[in-house]
């Protein structure tokens, strides 16, 4: 309260008296004679496993959620637990592994590199770039997820080296580049980074200012940073370790600009000295990811050989002719950005694992932590036995499960990619990256609060993860920009279908070809829980919003505005539509995962989770009421059902988070015996 004594009015004085009386009553404990006060025993920690039910096979559930390479995951978890570099610490009789975030950023960066060195020695990265086929790709994705469960910096450092630097060489480069660089990259003979973003341009890559000019006399490209806003910024690996970089630059051949192209340049020698004509500075301390050495780079007319142009899309002949199979500069640019898809896929997936970590911790804590008695002289109540606490956490558990299925679907799309599926991957990965990372940040915040003060301790992970993962809504495409792209792409589908009078095909939009679904005016519990109703309402929203968005944009264009300007004006519908697409697509992946199961206890709990996912989405998104997909009565019925679902999911809470595939050692002390972990005997003295 901000009131000062001098401003005390009579009513404030009354309030002070009232508070005093309340406090006095608390201290005196009416109904208890002072003699009955005893020194209470220490609260007992009782492992939730002893009291909670396990109605379904958590191993089977984990198989569904993790989806692939479980044994490989366990192997890598074990490699980390068994090595001192991963900072095993005993707390409350258990060993936890987590980096020492109390180290300086320089120390954290060195530790990240040493951990990479150890994993390299253990052959974890074997086949990450030289492997062939889907099998090695699935395994690589699983390993990256596991590493990310330990530490975001470690995962990002690997992501930059293998997926961005390595991926650029794989996708933009040709045979000569593959032969020269991939094996050395896999073995860390060289360390790569990826210089795309500039101080002045992030999501808008086409606007970057760095220029590469071809010098046909020497057969070299001359790369230059023409202004301060053209300095490369946030380049992971650049500040300390990287020896080589991909440079994104405008390409100038014979005085004409051919747009953005990618080049390879060396920035450090083998001893770590920065190369001539390159200047590097640190990005400084950050709110997270301090184990990653983000740096800034200026190029002062650095010269690189002609072969260092990554030439799968376009090439420059020795005498300075520009050659490209793709004539349309827009398409050429799109081809360049294709590898960034892998980043969006891995970001989306890793976001969900962080939600799993924080939910497993906060659910376990809420099953052992008590607060307030409902009646005098009765035990205090477990946090998770409060309906309000259930309502805070259990819908997030359901969403996290739904998004696990979505993440698995996205990975499948990516691993099985073909040139034809590029568009779908681009749209789905954009939508899921934004939706899953936003969900994660919200989940982390709720879990942090649900753990109370304990959530603020770095060792308990939940609060710290907020700083570590905030960046996910920005890198590899700002979430808002990505969602706008999704809506634009949907509109393009719409226009194509209408113009050519052809049915919708792909992206799950086939429902647009049917007649509009009808939502019953009265929603019973069993209707609300049916897949049919849930599908209908998600499709209804998407279809209507797509119609509205198309109408809005075309109306705006009819008034003489450009298409681009019309988009920016229709941002509200664009936002609603992007969400509608994403929610519906996630829901469908859940339905498919469930459909493959034979009936039993696992299927039952999944259907509870699926209904919770659907109904909480209905409850939370105002669009359903705003556009009338749900009547106010229906919305009330949904709300009531959500509360019911909370109490039905409550008994399964521990079993569900135990299926998340996060080993105990990667959770945190408050997830286990937090009384012992905080005991005097555990204090170093």
């Amino acid at each position, binding site marked *: 309260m901000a009131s000062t004594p001098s401003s005390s009015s009579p009513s404030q004085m009354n309030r002070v008296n009232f508070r005093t009386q309340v406090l006095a009553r608390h201290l005196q404990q009416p109904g208890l004679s002072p003699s009955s006060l005893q020194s209470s025993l220490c609260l007992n*920690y009782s492992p939730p496993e002893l009291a909670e039910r396990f109605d379904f096979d958590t191993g089977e559930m984990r198989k569904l959620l993790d989806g692939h390479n479980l044994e*490989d995951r366990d192997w890598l978890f074990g490699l980390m637990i068994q090595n001192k570099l991963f900072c095993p610490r005993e707390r409350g009789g258990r060993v936890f592994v987590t980096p020492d975030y109390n180290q300086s950023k320089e120390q954290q960066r060195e530790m990240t590199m040493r951990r990479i060195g150890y994993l390299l020695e253990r052959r974890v990265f074997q086949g990450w770039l030289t492997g062939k086929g889907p099998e090695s790709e699935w395994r690589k994705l699983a390993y990256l997820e596991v590493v990310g469960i330990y530490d975001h910096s470690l995962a990002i450092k690997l992501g930059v080296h293998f997926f961005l630097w390595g991926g650029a060489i794989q996708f933009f480069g040709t045979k000569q580049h593959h032969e020269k660089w991939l094996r050395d990259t896999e073995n860390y003979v060289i360390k790569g980074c990826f210089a795309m973003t500039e101080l002045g341009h992030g999501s808008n890559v086409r606007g970057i200012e760095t220029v590469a000019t071809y010098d046909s006399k020497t057969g070299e490209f001359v790369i230059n940073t023409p202004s301060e806003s053209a300095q490369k910024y946030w380049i992971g690996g650049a500040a300390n370790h990287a020896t080589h970089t991909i440079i994104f630059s405008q390409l100038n051949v014979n005085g004409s600009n051919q747009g953005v192209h990618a080049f390879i340049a060396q920035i450090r020698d083998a001893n770590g000295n920065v190369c001539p004509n390159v200047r590097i500075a640190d990005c400084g301390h950050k709110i997270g990811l301090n184990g990653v050495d983000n740096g800034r780079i200026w190029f002062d007319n650095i010269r690189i050989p002609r072969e260092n142009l990554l030439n799968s899309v376009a090439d420059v002949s020795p005498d300075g002719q520009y050659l490209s199979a793709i004539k349309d500069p827009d398409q050429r640019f799109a081809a360049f950005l294709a590898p960034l898809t892998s980043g969006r896929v891995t970001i989306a997936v890793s976001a969900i694992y962080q939600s799993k970590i924080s939910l497993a911790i906060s659910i376990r804590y809420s099953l052992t932590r008590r607060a307030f008695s409902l009646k005098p002289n009765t035990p205090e109540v477990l946090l998770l036995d409060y309906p309000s606490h259930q309502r805070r956490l259990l819908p997030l558990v359901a969403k996290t499960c739904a998004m696990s299925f979505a993440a698995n679907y996205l990975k499948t799309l990516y691993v099985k990619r073909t040139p034809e599926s590029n568009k779908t991957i681009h749209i789905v990965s954009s939508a899921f990256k934004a939706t899953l990372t936003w969900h994660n940040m919200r989940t982390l915040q709720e879990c942090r609060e649900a753990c109370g003060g304990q959530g603020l301790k770095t060792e308990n992970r939940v609060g710290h993860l907020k700083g570590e993962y905030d960046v996910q809504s920005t890198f590899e495409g700002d979430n808002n920009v990505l969602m706008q792209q999704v809506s634009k792409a949907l509109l393009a589908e719409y226009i194509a279908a209408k113009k050519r009078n052809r049915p919708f095909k792909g992206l799950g939009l086939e429902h647009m070809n049917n007649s509009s679904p009808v939502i019953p005016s009265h929603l019973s519990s069993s209707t609300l829980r049916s897949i049919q109703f849930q599908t209908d309402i998600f499709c209804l929203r998407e279809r209507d919003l797509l119609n509205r968005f198309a109408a809005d944009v075309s109306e705006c264009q009819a008034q003489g505005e450009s298409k681009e300007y019309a988009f920016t004006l229709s941002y509200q519908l664009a936002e609603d539509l992007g969400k509608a697409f994403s929610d519906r697509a996630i829901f469908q992946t859940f339905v498919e995962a469930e459909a493959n199961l034979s009936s039993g206890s696992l299927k039952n709990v999944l259907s509870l989770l699926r209904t919770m996912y659907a109904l909480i989405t209905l409850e939370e998104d105002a669009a359903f009421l705003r556009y009338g997909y749900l009547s106010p009565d229906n919305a009330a019925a949904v709300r009531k059902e959500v509360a019911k679902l909370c109490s039905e999911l409550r008994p399964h809470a521990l079993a569900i988070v135990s299926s998340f595939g996060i080993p105990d050692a990667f959770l945190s002390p408050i997830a286990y015996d937090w009384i012992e972990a905080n005991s005097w005997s555990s204090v170093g003295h």
Partner: protein
Amino acid sequence: MDRSSSSNVESNQVLVEENCHARIVLLNRPKQLNALSFQMISRLLELFLAYEKDPNVKLIILKGNGRAFSAGGDVSAVVRGLVQGNWEFGATYFWKEYILNFLMATYSKPQVSVLNGIVMGGGAGVSVHGRFRIATENSIFAMPETALGLFPDVGASYFLARLPGFFGEYIGLTGARLDGAEMLACGLATHFVSSGRLPFMEEALCKANSSDLATISAIIDKLSEQPNLKENSPYRQLDIINECFSRRTIEEIISALESAAAKQKNDWISSAIKSLKTGSPTSLKISLRSIREGRLQGVGQCLVREYRMVCKVMLGQVSKDFFEGCRAILWDKDRNPKWEPSKLELLKDAMVDHYFTKVDREGWEDLKLPTRSNLPVHAIAKL
């Protein structure tokens, strides 16, 4: 097996001496090196359950009569039962044994196991889970299951996985023998006391009249010594063990060992290679996976998984190596088992997966762990 004929001879397989507040429990089947018969398991379970409730009991000392602490479970009886079509006997045997292991792992009173001789398989299961394990100059420890067509069970996937680095994989897969000094070094034993001093230790422990871990530890500390790790002990080369046994698959472990052997001549490396090449391929693969899973699970989950595995082993749908191993090692003693599948590469992932799924058999249930209450902190941490 006729269970009703529990004559005196059989009930004498476990002897108890009451000494003030201590109970000295003696495994007494010396001719069979104290291999744990069904009766012994049942009796131990009974005793431990009773002692936990009995306020007069503060400490349990478990030791073996003769030159062994215990050479393991009585698998011979189990396989005899199987051959006669009595699957249930084996299932009940392992069920009880694992429940006993779980009880010991989560026991509220200190158990001191005196490992003055052979400790193998099931013998490790009734000692390593307890709070204090005393090694001596006579100790010989091994988990020899992969040579028998079985896998390190009795909660070994829990305790082996928690040894330093990948030492657990090494001894669990190769069945390598450890002496008392090595047991202490790797943490399988908590103390080393020379056998001559054991009577003093027992006496002091009985006199102590205490359940307090620090008090008991102090008593044993006083009598214990720091033995020298022998010059050629594999434990001195933990870096090589970590390098090789951290590999993802058995095949990769073998090839890593072979390249280590090429670099330096080493007896333990060549015998490790030999063990991995002569052990049951099925056993090796399921054992490795079991230890790797065990590293991430509580002791209860480990035992539930091991119970699934051992039932699958007994059913023999993928491999009958358990029968073959018993034939070659315990009965015919030709030491020349014919494993089937005969090679590592013949075992497909799905065949290995089979051992980790529920048993599809009428009336079969997952191991049901007893509800435990008032657990001590160190027991809570194992769940």
